[in-house]
């Protein structure tokens, strides 16, 4: 020990006096500055402190403190604990704050992800809706055009061909709708009517009264191969 101290140009006695606080102010400042930067001397001072503790014990006649001191101290401890947030309470408070913070963060992240997903779904739905609206508009335009009172229905034929009666049906079970498009049907004798028959799955033929064709064929017109009209029938099942 003394070797290290001597190598630092310090007398070992000075370290002892320094540890005891028995140096004058200028020497105390000088050695204190050295000890702060010297691990070896710090260790020696710590060792001297340990020996000082034993010296203090050995040279002090043992005496018991008054019992009331403990009562006073514990009363003050309880008072301090009750009136002031103790370190433990602060630790608890900080721990709780930390837990709440983490929970809040987790919820916030979860919410943020949910919002992001919902926004993506919303954008997708908007795109889909726009496409459907466009498709619906086209369908509506198609139907409106077909139903328009001034709609001109024109069938195109080659010049020498003779038009043949034609009827086309489109049936959608899902839509519960049948569309019949008929062209060039022969005029019927009085009391006769055209009928549209549908076959059920059980192979029985049915003919609903509402399905009776109300066909009013326009007069045929021959004008440069153009032939009028077509009849469009909607039947709701």
């Amino acid at each position, binding site marked *: 020990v003394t070797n290290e101290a001597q190598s630092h140009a310090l007398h070992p006695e000075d370290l002892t*006096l320094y540890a005891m*606080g*028995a*140096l004058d102010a200028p020497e105390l400042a000088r050695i204190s500055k050295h000890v702060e930067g010297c691990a070896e001397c710090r260790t020696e001072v710590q060792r001297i402190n340990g020996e000082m*503790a034993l010296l203090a014990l050995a040279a002090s006649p043992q005496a018991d403190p008054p019992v009331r001191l403990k009562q006073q101290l514990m009363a003050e401890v309880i008072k301090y604990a009750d009136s002031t947030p103790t370190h*433990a309470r602060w630790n608890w408070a900080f721990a709780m704050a930390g837990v709440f913070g983490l929970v809040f963060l987790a919820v916030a992240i979860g919410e943020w992800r949910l919002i992001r997903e919902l926004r993506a779904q919303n954008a997708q739905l908007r795109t889909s809706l726009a496409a459907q609206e466009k498709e619906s508009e086209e369908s509506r335009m198609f139907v409106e055009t077909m139903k328009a009172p001034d709609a001109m229905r024109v069938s195109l034929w080659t010049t020498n061909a003779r038009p043949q009666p034609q009827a086309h049906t489109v049936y959608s079970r899902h839509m519960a709708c049948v569309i019949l498009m008929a062209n060039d049907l022969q005029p019927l004798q009085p009391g006769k009517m055209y009928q549209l028959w549908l076959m059920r799955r059980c192979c029985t033929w049915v003919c609903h009264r509402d399905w009776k064709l109300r066909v009013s064929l326009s007069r045929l017109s021959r004008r440069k191969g153009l032939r009028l009209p077509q009849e469009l029938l909607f039947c709701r099942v």
Partner: protein
Amino acid sequence: MDSTARAKVGQQADDSVLVASTRRGDQEAFAILYDRYSRLVYSVALRVVRSAAIAEDILHDIFLQLWRMPHQFDAARGNLGAWLAVIARNRGIDRIRKQKCTVDPEETVLLSPVDLSYEVERSTVVEKVREVLKAMPEAQRLAVEMAFFEGKTHVEIAAAMKEPLGTVKTRIRSALLAIRKALNE
């Protein structure tokens, strides 16, 4: 485990465990520490200040500080009993010099050669050190006591004993080396 059994376990707990519990606000652990070390702290303080009232103040202040700021002590600062003894001595010296607390407890670090938490070991060591002190020359023991218990500087001691400064320094140093040697034997 009932309270009696828990108290018995607490009485046997290590200082580090009790200090850790005190940090969490455990009053029972703090009370055990007080029971374990109040006599030691009070005796040292009384030896320094030679006044029961002031020694009681010092004892009260030190333990209240331990309760309020237990983080000031950790195992890295050394043995709790030795640490408290040095703190008690330093507080006593401050009172003698009528100074405010000049030594920060957090700056007091020591390497204790023995564990003072057990009464038996403490008594054995104390007895050994007492024998060393008893065997010292009167002038050497006086110089140590003036420095350690009366808070005098080496200049003041030299003047009081009418001895050269170097002689006083050597005597104090030699006294501590004698204690170290006795503990290592």
